[in-house]
């Protein structure tokens, strides 16, 4: 057999049948549900008198709309409340395993899946949410789907798909001190652009990727979408297996050993073909952030805001001008030192225990700057509990951060955590489009350490100066 990539192998394992027009019926191992994109799909099943084919391969959790403040009170926003109550009725009726709002295991679906051992290497994993790519860090094929596809998976446990093209992004070498997975990914997106991965599934490879822990790999795969790709993945290795071992829903004992033996066969074969191949040097990557309203507008923290006048392409120039106006920045200004109003540490990109530790390291013994609102929103109840066991909550609370309950929160501002017009936010999330975190809000995407540095200095700051 010709050498195959990790993606090819997972794909081949899951093809039920290839139809004459070239689409394949692809088997799905895990279907993750949340309150926003599932209700119409459940309704569709009900209207057609269909059953949920495999509730035991499905999992549901509430995250997008949940309040991250006191949860013993009823939810104020009627639409959020309705979506949450609808999910609760649906999971009961269809027998779906569900992590309710008040469960310690509740959290952002893309944090909960790996954390519970529900997302495993070699699997196909889907969810009605584009950042499903996060689970690719496990060495699985994971991608977001629309509402009618959600219903299709519910009824058939399959999807109609055509294979994507293969792309490899290799990061070789060792990152400098203070450079995190987020910085690596921002550098990659800055390098290949938001359309760089279009039509492809990206395999992240190279020593700098292998050296990352699972949280870091999840940060990288999470933002594959921002690089235009359908999914991102990392070959499963000892780091992966050590992470998976003893997770609640992972195979146990002898089964685990058998699973590992199988997972080891998944890595890309030497000589396998990639339609696109990009390499970056880890040493060249600095702590980074975005200055504009597209995730590819990446700068090192030591850099200056680019000048549209130097852009040859007319439409790009106009776009840059518009971004500068929206973001309230001047061409040529140093990005470091720009004052911020809000700091958000959370989202499925950066809300795991490792992320909170990195932020705490910067925040320890310091105070949130006057006039800055800084919030920490752990990715799950379990992350929150562990942070509290390690005393991180005390560090944050003493410094003046808000310590909140798990959920999507200000990543998309569906719950009450929103920016007001003109507010500038240092955010560890993944999207900086106009209005993403609230109408008129200005978002700078950056790492947890850099976000914490912005909180304690009151402006965008090179976190390396503080550790």
């Amino acid at each position, binding site marked *: 057999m010709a050498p195959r990539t990790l993606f090819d192998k997972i794909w081949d394992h899951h093809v*039920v*049948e290839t139809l004459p027009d070239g689409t394949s*019926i692809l*088997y799905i*191992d895990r279907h993750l549900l949340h309150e926003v994109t599932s*209700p*119409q799909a459940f*309704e*569709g099943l009900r*209207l*057609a008198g*269909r059953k949920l084919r495999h509730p*035991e*391969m*499905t*999992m549901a959790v509430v995250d997008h709309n949940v309040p991250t403040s006191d949860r013993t009170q009823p939810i104020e926003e009627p*639409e959020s409340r*309705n*979506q949450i109550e*609808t999910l609760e009725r649906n999971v009961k009726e269809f027998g779906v*395993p*569900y992590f309710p709002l008040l469960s310690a295991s509740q959290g952002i679906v893309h944090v909960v899946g790996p954390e519970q*051992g*529900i997302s*495993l290497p070699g699997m196909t994993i889907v969810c009605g949410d584009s950042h499903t790519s996060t689970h690719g860090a496990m060495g699985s094929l994971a991608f977001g789907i*629309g*509402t*009618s596809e959600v*219903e*299709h998976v519910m*009824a*058939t*446990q*399959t999807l*109609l798909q055509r294979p994507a093209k293969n792309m490899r992004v290799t990061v070789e070498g060792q990152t400098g001190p203070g450079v995190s997975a987020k910085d690596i990914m921002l550098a990659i997106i800055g390098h290949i652009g938001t359309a760089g991965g279009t039509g492809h599934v990206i395999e992240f490879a190279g020593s700098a990727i292998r050296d990352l822990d699972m949280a870091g790999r999840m940060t990288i795969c999470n933002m594959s979408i921002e690089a235009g790709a359908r999914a991102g993945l990392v070959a499963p290795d000892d780091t992966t297996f050590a992470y998976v071992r003893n997770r609640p*829903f*992972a*195979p146990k004992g002898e*089964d*685990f050993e*058998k*699973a590992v033996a*199988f997972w080891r066969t998944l890595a890309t074969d030497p000589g396998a073909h990639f339609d696109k191949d990009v390499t970056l040097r880890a040493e060249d990557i600095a702590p980074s952030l975005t200055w504009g309203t597209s995730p590819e507008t990446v700068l090192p923290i030591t850099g200056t805001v680019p000048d549209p006048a130097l852009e040859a392409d007319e439409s790009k120039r106009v776009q840059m001008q518009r971004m500068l106006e929206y973001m309230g920045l001047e061409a040529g200004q140093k990005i470091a030192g720009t004052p911020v109003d809000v700091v958000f540490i959370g989202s499925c990109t950066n809300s795991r225990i490792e992320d909170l530790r990195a932020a705490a390291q910067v925040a320890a013994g310091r105070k949130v700057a006057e006039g800055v609102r800084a919030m920490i929103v752990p990715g799950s109840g379990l992350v929150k509990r562990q942070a509290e066991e390690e005393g991180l909550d005390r560090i944050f609370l003493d410094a003046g951060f808000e310590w909140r309950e798990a959920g999507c929160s200000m990543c998309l501002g569906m719950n009450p955590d929103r920016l007001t017009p003109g507010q500038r936010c240092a955010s560890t999330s993944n999207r900086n489009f106009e209005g993403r975190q609230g109408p008129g809000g200005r978002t700078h995407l950056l790492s947890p350490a850099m976000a914490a540095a912005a909180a304690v200095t009151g402006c965008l700051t090179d976190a390396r100066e503080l550790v």
Partner: protein
Amino acid sequence: MEKFTTLSAVAAALPEDNIDTDKIIPARFLKTTRRTGLGKHAFDSMRYRPDGSENPDFILNQEPWRHAEILVTYDNLGCGSSREHAPWALLDFGIRCVIAPSFADIFFNNCFKNGILPISLPRDVCELLMADSSMGSNARLTIDLPRQVVIRPGGEEVPFEIDPFRKHMLLEGLDDIGQTLQHESEIKSYEQKVVGERPWMPVITLD
């Protein structure tokens, strides 16, 4: 999905180009958790006045077009955002067939997914059908899908084109799911094969 064979019904004319999905169902109705019930908001901004009362000048508020099951419009029907709520709203209103000189791609596909037949006919033919429809309830149009003709009130037949696979899906009332379920035995044998090869694959159960 309901089968589509022949439909004999009142047609309503909306003689406009570029009726976008936001006109069909405005964004503010998207926070719903249901796909039914959107019919009362279909064409909301044309159908209701700012105080919420019906606009008597709008055709879908008049007899007999209030009961229209066929819609005839001009070019590029369903352009704009790709929301699947647009066909949901039309279907819930009672529309089973839309006729226009051209359609936006995603809307066109979404119609089939929801059991609505989109028929593309030249603009001058659409004008004739609009004139027919203005005669009201004595002037029903008949859509004969098996024979691929629209039958005008006077009996004249207008042929139309449709992809044979999509025609089959509509005639049988099959959606994508129904189609995939025709491969049930392949899915079953795949599942058995995996259980054999990877018996350690865990299932999710909570108590």
